[in-house]
Every structure is written in structure tokens, then in C-alpha cells.
């Protein structure tokens, strides 16, 4: 009967993988020196010592890996959260995680920790901030072991307000330099020099994908609402909590290493839903791949568009994403499909 659907899914998946590969190759070849696609492999294998080798392996490759991880993780978190809340405006940042992380980083900057401890403190502080937010949102919305999904959303929004107010406080009372550093950090960027951090980001992101696949049945059943999902044998209380934690960890990781890169976690999931439908089995992986590819592509544009100057990546994600999404919305008009 519906095996034809699986074939369709296979085709979509192939397409998305190709998209990612294309984005990666494009990103590898473009920059201050354009390296033809045909030479990339050669340079990477035997070009050690040449400047091209350094550019590819030290500058572009790490960015690509980080971009894939962050883009994938953000989209994944977005898909999961939109699944839990069935509200098309929910995105990874709605729950205040980005606010908490940003506050952590701002605090580290203002306290001058990066001078005393080193710049690894920034992602660490970001992660601690994200964690603190997640824990407070969670604690505040669990009552008698039950989680109030909608309350949680509002509490997240509130925590996010409080965090950004606190950050504003820091910004208003600190030096000019610190203020700038906070602003830049919040804008988001993929230039992270620490290889270990990049490795960790990649691992968390892939693990997040794998673990979230344990919850596909839950996510699919939740499309019918919590009560109906329970009738289908889903332990919604526990599953929603775990899904929330997964999404939070992913978001926290992204924000800590790359700042607040907007748009991806909100729109990629909706965009993919329009294309492949609402079944989470295909939705999760498709969003993950497309999100990664999208960020890598945008980052390449950010590096090259007004070269030699670079743009913050958020400029590109916002403009490209926003315009194409409006275009789709108007032309397809499949409003109903947005959950």
C-alpha cells in the first residue's frame, strides 16, 4: 500500500544529501582565493604546506563542519519544538535558551574572564547560561510530575525576556569594548578557532539527530494532540520532557559556539514540512541536512559577497531565508500545512 511513500522519501533524502554536498563543495572552493573544484581533493591529499592547503584545512573546513553541525542542530531543535507545541511561531530561541546563553557570555565578557581564563570561557559560559535557563524553565513548568506544555512555552518566553533584560543591564553598565564584544557575539558567526569545540559541536549535533529518532513515534502521535497520543500508547509526559531536553541541549550547544544565528530554526522546519509533509520520520533528517547545507551556503556568501569584507552570517540567513519563505508562502498558499 504505502511503500510508494518510502520511495518518495528516499528520493527526497537523496536530493537533500546532494544539496549538502553541493553547499560543501561550493564553500570549499570560494573565498579570497578561488580553488577550482577539480583541484580540491589533490590539494587536501598532497598539498600540505601550500597556502591553499592551509586555507582549505585550517580555515574553510572547520567552518564547514561547524556550519553543518550548527545548522543541523538548530533545524532539528526547531522541528522538535514545533512538534511538541504545535505552534508555527515556536523556534529554538523561543524558550529563552538563546537569551540565557547570551547572558552567560555577556557576563563572562563583562567580568573579563576571557582575559584571565582564555577564550574557551565564552562558549563554556554560554553553555552554562543555556543550561541554567533550561533547568529553570523546566522546574517552573513541571507540577506534580506533569508538564504543562503551553505554560512551558510562556515561561520560556518570560525567561528569555528576563535574560535579555539582564543582558541589557550588563551592556548599559559596561565599557564600550565589552558592549561591542557582546553585540558581535550575539550576531553570531562561525569563526571558531578551537578545534576541540568544533569536534564537540559535531558530535552533539549528530548524537542529537540519532537520539531524536528514538522519539519519532512520539512526535508523529503528538500531531494529534497530547490526549490522542496517550491513547496510542505514548507516555507523553516523559517523552515531552526528554524531547524538550534534547532540543535544549542542541540549541544551547549552537548558541554557545556560534552565537545567535537567527531564522534557521524557525524556517527550515516549516519549509521542509511544506516540501516533504509532516511525517517526522522524514522531517527530522531532511531538516537536519537542509539546515546544515543552508548555513554552509549562507556562510560562504557572507564571506564572499562584499569581499574582502565579511558580513555577519545572520545577514544572509535572514535575507535569503525570509524572502524565499515569503515567496513560497504566497505562491503555494499551503498555509494549512504549517502545522
Amino acid at each position, binding site marked *: *500500500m*504505502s*511503500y510508494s511513500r*518510502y520511495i518518495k522519501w528516499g528520493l527526497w533524502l537523496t536530493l537533500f544529501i546532494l544539496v549538502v554536498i553541493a553547499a560543501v563543495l561550493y564553500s570549499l572552493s570560494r573565498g579570497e582565493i578561488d580553488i577550482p573544484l577539480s583541484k580540491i581533493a589533490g590539494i587536501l591529499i598532497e598539498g600540505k604546506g601550500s597556502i591553499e592547503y592551509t586555507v582549505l584545512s585550517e580555515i574553510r573546513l572547520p567552518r564547514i563542519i561547524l556550519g553543518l553541525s550548527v545548522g543541523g542542530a538548530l533545524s532539528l531543535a526547531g522541528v522538535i519544538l514545533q512538534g511538541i507545541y504545535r505552534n508555527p511561531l515556536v523556534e529554538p530561541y523561543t524558550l529563552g535558551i538563546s537569551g540565557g546563553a547570551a547572558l552567560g557570555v555577556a557576563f563572562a565578557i563583562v567580568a573579563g574572564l576571557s582575559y584571565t581564563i582564555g577564550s574557551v570561557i565564552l562558549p563554556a559560559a554560554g553553555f552554562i547560561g543555556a543550561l541554567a535557563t533550561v533547568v529553570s524553565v523546566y522546574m517552573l513548568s513541571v507540577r506534580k510530575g506533569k508538564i504543562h506544555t503551553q505554560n512551558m512555552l510562556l515561561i520560556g518566553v518570560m525567561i528569555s525576556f528576563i535574560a535579555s533584560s539582564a543582558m541589557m543591564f550588563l551592556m548599559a553598565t559596561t565599557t564600550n569594548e565589552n558592549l561591542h564584544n557582546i553585540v558581535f557575539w550575539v550576531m553570531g558567526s562561525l569563526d571558531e578557532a578551537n578545534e576541540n569545540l568544533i569536534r564537540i559541536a559535531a558530535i552533539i549535533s549528530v548524537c542529537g539527530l540519532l537520539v531524536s*529518532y*528514538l522519539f*519519532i*513515534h512520539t512526535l*508523529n*502521535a503528538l*500531531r*494529534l*494532540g497530547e*490526549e*490522542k497520543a*496517550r*491513547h*496510542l*500508547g*505514548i*507516555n507523553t509526559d516523559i517523552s515531552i520532557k526528554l524531547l524538550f531536553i534534547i532540543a535544549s541541549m542542541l540549541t544551547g550547544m549552537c548558541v554557545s559556539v556560534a552565537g545567535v544565528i537567527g531564522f534557521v530554526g524557525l524556517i527550515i522546519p516549516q519549509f521542509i514540512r511544506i516540501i516533504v509533509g*509532516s*511525517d517526522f*520520520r522524514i522531517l527530522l533528517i531532511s531538516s537536519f541536512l537542509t539546515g546544515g547545507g543552508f548555513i554552509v551556503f549562507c556562510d560562504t556568501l557572507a564571506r564572499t559577497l562584499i569581499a574582502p569584507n565579511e558580513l555577519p552570517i545572520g545577514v544572509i540567513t535572514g535575507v535569503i531565508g525570509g524572502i524565499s519563505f515569503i515567496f513560497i508562502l504566497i505562491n503555494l498558499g499551503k498555509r*494549512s*500545512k504549517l*502545522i
Partner: protein
Amino acid sequence: MKFLEIENMSCGYEKKFLVSDIDISISKGSFVGIIGPNGSGKTTLFKGISGDLKLKSGKISLGNKNLKLFSHKERARNLAVVTQDIESPDITVEDYVLMGRLPYHTGFQFFENEEDLEIAEKYMKLTAVTNMRDKFLSQLSGGERQMVAITKALVQEPELLLLDEPTSHLDIALQIQILNLVQQLNDELGLTVMMIIHDLNLAGEYCDELILMNKGKIKEKGLPEYVLTYSNIEEVYGTVVFTQPNPLSGRPAIFLVSKRILNSISKER
């Protein structure tokens, strides 16, 4: 030991409404109808059985095992519910029906297997929704949607099926079709059915046993002939009806009579 045993159960909404003193025991393969006025607690009773409401007291056992001890999945494999409200999420009929197989999937089972598809197909044929498989639920008529919800519950292949007003939006053909189907499963596979229904004629016609609820308590239970008496109905519903056996089946049939006619009759006298 009966299949479903409910002992001294009570449950409800905080301080607002309570069903209480519920003792029901149902043997495997029976078809039990639950009737009673609006707000008498029929749906609340179902919510207690399905686990949507916590029990305030009492105990429910299914097949000799306390329902509390069932895992979520186990429960869903043994008990399917068709609720009263008609949902319309954006999902195709086919996907929706296939969700009925979720309780049978292990966490790692990614695709529906042959069996799932066959079972879904079978019940979609039985309920005649095959031709709308690719429509979205929001594009169905009220009755179509109800039919699809019942299909999903059947696909769960439960031991016990709880139907909350399953025929309320169905035309007579589908009413009969769905009730015949449930009766058939009941006869052939020993599916135990509890059904809330307002149509007393259908209740009398199809159910082996009726439970009449009133104000959160069980007012009467037993054979349809025994429950659907003129006096019971008058007492619980506060309405004058005319009863007479169905000329074909011999089951009790109830005639509602409009006031206009009642008035004209009483004038004549």
C-alpha cells in the same frame, strides 16, 4: 472472572463533577451500551477507564490484571478509544489510520511492516474509507471524519474498544454499517465493546447489555428489554416516549413524539 472488572470506581474533575460508585463487570466479547442524559458522566467514565483521568478510588482490571500495571503501549494494544470530539489535524487519512499501529511498533521500528499495512488496508476497506486515503482530515465531511477515527481505533486491534458516540454524525447507512462491523468483530474475534450512544433505538438493537447512567451514578444495568422501559426513561430523562418492540428484531424500540402531536392527542381525549 469477567474480562473487564470495575470495582467501586470514582473519578471526576476537581470539586466540579464526579462519577462514583461505579461497579461494572463485563465478560469478554460482549457489546455493552452506555446511555444516559447529557452531562450524566458517560464520557467521564470512559476517561476513567482509558486513564485520561486519575481514579479517585476503586480499581479497574482488564483480563485479570490491574490496569494500572499496564505499560502505556500495552494499554494501547488492549484498549482503543474513539473520543467524542472530532479532530482535524493536517494529516492524510492514510497516515492517520496507520497511526493506529503505533502501539505495536518498538522504539526502533522505523517503517510500517507488511502486517501494519495489511491491517490498515483491511479496516479501511471494511469501513469504506479507502477512496479518501489521500485527503486531509480537514477536507472531510463530519461523518467521514468520524468514520476515519473509528477506523484508526480498529487498526489498533484492541481487546476492548471504547466508542464515545461513534455514530453521532453518521448517516443511517453508515450508522448501520459501523455498528454491524463492530458487531461482526464482536462476534468473530471476541472484541469487547463499550459504546456511549444517545440513540436508544440503536442501543437497544445492537447492545447485549445496557448501562443507564444518571447524575454520575449507574441507575440501571442489564438486558436492553430490562433497561429501556417506559418508566426508567421517564425517570431519568424526564420525557414521555412511546415504546414498542421493533417489528423485525423484537428489540425494544422507542418513539419520540413531538409536542405538537402530543398536544393534539391530549386535546382529542
